C-alpha cells in the first residue's frame, strides 16, 4: 500500500484548488474589481483635483490592495472547513505545513497577482506621479505575499468560528500596519526623490522570514482551532 509522496499531495492540492478556481473563474477577478472600486470612491469623497489625488495616490493604492487582500482572505479555509475537507487535510499522511504553503501560494497567485497587475491602472486613476510607480510596484511585489502569509496564520486561528470576517480583520490589521509603514515609506521616499532601498530591503527580509515560519505557525494554529 502506497501513501503517495508529499510532492504528489502538493500537486493534487494545487490542481484541485485551481480547478475550484476555474469553476468560479468570475470570482478570481473580484478582488481586483473591488480594489478598483475602493479607489474610485476616493475621487468622489475627496473631490477630483489631480494634485490632491496624486499626493495620496500611492498610500491609497496600498490601503485598497491591503483591504482587498484582507477580504479575500476569509475564503482561504472557509469552504474547506464547511464541507469537512479541512479535517481530511489535517488527517493526511503528509506534512501539514507543506500542504498549507501550497494553499497559500495558490491563494496569492489567484488573488494578489491580478491586483498587482492592476496596480498601474489604479495608480493612473489617482494621478500617481510616474516616478513613484516603479517603487510602488516593488513594494507591492514584496508586501502582498507577506500579507498573504501573515493573514493565513490569523485565518487559521479564526477558522472554527462563524461570521469571523470582522474578527479576522481585527486580528490581521495590527499585523499589517508595520508592512504598510515600510511600503508607504518606500513610496514616500520615491515621491521626494530620496533612495528607496532600505525600506524595500526590510520588506524582503520579512518576507523570507515569513516564508519559513508562517506555514509552520499556520499548521499549529489550524490544529488548535479544529480541536
Amino acid at each position, binding site marked *: 500500500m502506497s501513501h503517495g509522496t508529499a510532492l504528489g499531495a502538493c500537486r493534487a492540492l494545487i490542481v484541485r484548488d485551481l480547478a475550484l478556481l476555474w469553476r*468560479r473563474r*468570475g*470570482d478570481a477577478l*473580484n478582488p481586483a474589481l473591488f480594489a478598483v472600486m475602493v479607489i*474610485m470612491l476616493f*475621487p*468622489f469623497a475627496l473631490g*477630483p483635483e*489631480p494634485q490632491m489625488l496624486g499626493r495620496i495616490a500611492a498610500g491609497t493604492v496600498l490601503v485598497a490592495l491591503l483591504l482587498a487582500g484582507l477580504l479575500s482572505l476569509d475564503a482561504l479555509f472557509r469552504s474547506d472547513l464547511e464541507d469537512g475537507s479541512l479535517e481530511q487535510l489535517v488527517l493526511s499522511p503528509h506534512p501539514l505545513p507543506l500542504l498549507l504553503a501550497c494553499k497559500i501560494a495558490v491563494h496569492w497567485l489567484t488573488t494578489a497577482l491580478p491586483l498587482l497587475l492592476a496596480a498601474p491602472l489604479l495608480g493612473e*486613476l489617482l494621478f500617481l506621479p510616474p516616478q513613484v510607480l516603479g517603487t510602488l510596484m516593488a513594494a507591492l511585489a514584496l508586501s502582498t505575499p507577506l500579507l498573504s502569509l501573515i493573514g493565513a496564520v490569523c485565518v487559521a486561528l479564526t477558522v472554527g468560528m462563524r461570521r469571523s470576517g470582522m474578527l479576522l480583520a481585527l486580528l490581521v490589521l495590527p499585523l499589517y500596519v508595520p508592512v504598510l509603514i515600510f511600503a508607504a515609506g518606500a513610496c514616500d521616499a520615491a515621491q521626494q526623490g530620496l533612495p528607496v532601498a532600505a525600506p524595500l530591503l526590510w520588506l524582503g527580509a520579512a518576507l523570507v522570514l515569513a516564508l519559513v515560519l508562517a506555514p509552520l505557525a499556520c499548521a499549529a494554529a489550524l490544529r488548535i482551532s479544529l480541536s
Partner: protein
Amino acid sequence: MNPLVLWFHKLGSPPYFYRLAGRLLPWLWGLAAIGIAAGLYGGLVLAPPDYQQSDAFRIIYIHVPSAWMSLFIYFFMAVNGFIALVWRIKLSEILAMAAAPVGAAFTFICLATGSLWGKPMWGTWWTWDARLTSELVLLFLYLGVIGLYHAIEDRRQAARAAAFLALIGIVNLPIVHFSVKWWNTLHQGSTVKLFGPSLIDSRMLWPLLIMAVATKFAFAASLLSRARVDLLELESGKDWARQIALAEETSA
C-alpha cells in the same frame, strides 16, 4: 388568432427561433460591415477637419456611436429582463443575458476611446466628472449582471436574479445621459439633437448617423448569435438540440 400574435408565439419556440436567427445572421453581419465601412470612410476621409480639434475630432465616429449603444443595450436588457420577470418568457431571459456582454463591450469601447480622446483634448486620460464616472458605473453594472448570472447554477433562476439587478440599475441611465446638463462638466454637451437643428456640419453628421445604425446591426448580429448558443445550451436535453448536435458532427 391574430397573425402577429401567432408569429410572436412561434418566435417563442426555441427551435424556430434558432433556425430564424441562423438565417438572419449573415444578413445582419453583412449590413453591419457595410455600414461600418461606409461610416468610417465618410468620417475619416470625406469629412473636413474640425476648426478647433483638427483631425482628433474623428474619434467621434467611434466614441459617440459606442456611447449611444452602451445606453441603448442597457435599456434593451432591462426591458427584456422585465418581461422575463413578469411573464417568465424563456426567450426574454436569454436575450437579456445575451445582451449584457455586448453592452459591456460597447461601454468599454466608449470608455477607452473617450480616454484616448481626452488625452489630446483635455490633457488627461481620465477625470472624475459626472459623465465619465456614471459611464464607468454603467460598466460595473454590466459586470455585476454578468457576474450574478454566472454565479448561480440554475440557468433560469440566474437569469431572473440578474434581470432583477438590471432593473434596479436602470436609474443610472438618466444620470449618464443628463449628467452634462445637471452638472457643469468638462465633457461636451449635446450636439446632435433628435428634435430641432443639430449644431454640426452635415458633412460631419451623416457618417455619424450611419455609424449609429451600423452599430445597431452589429449588436443585433452579436446578440442573435449569442442567444442561439445559449438556447442550445439551455435546451440541450431536448430533441431538436440533439439533432443539431448530430447534424453538426456529420458535417464537421
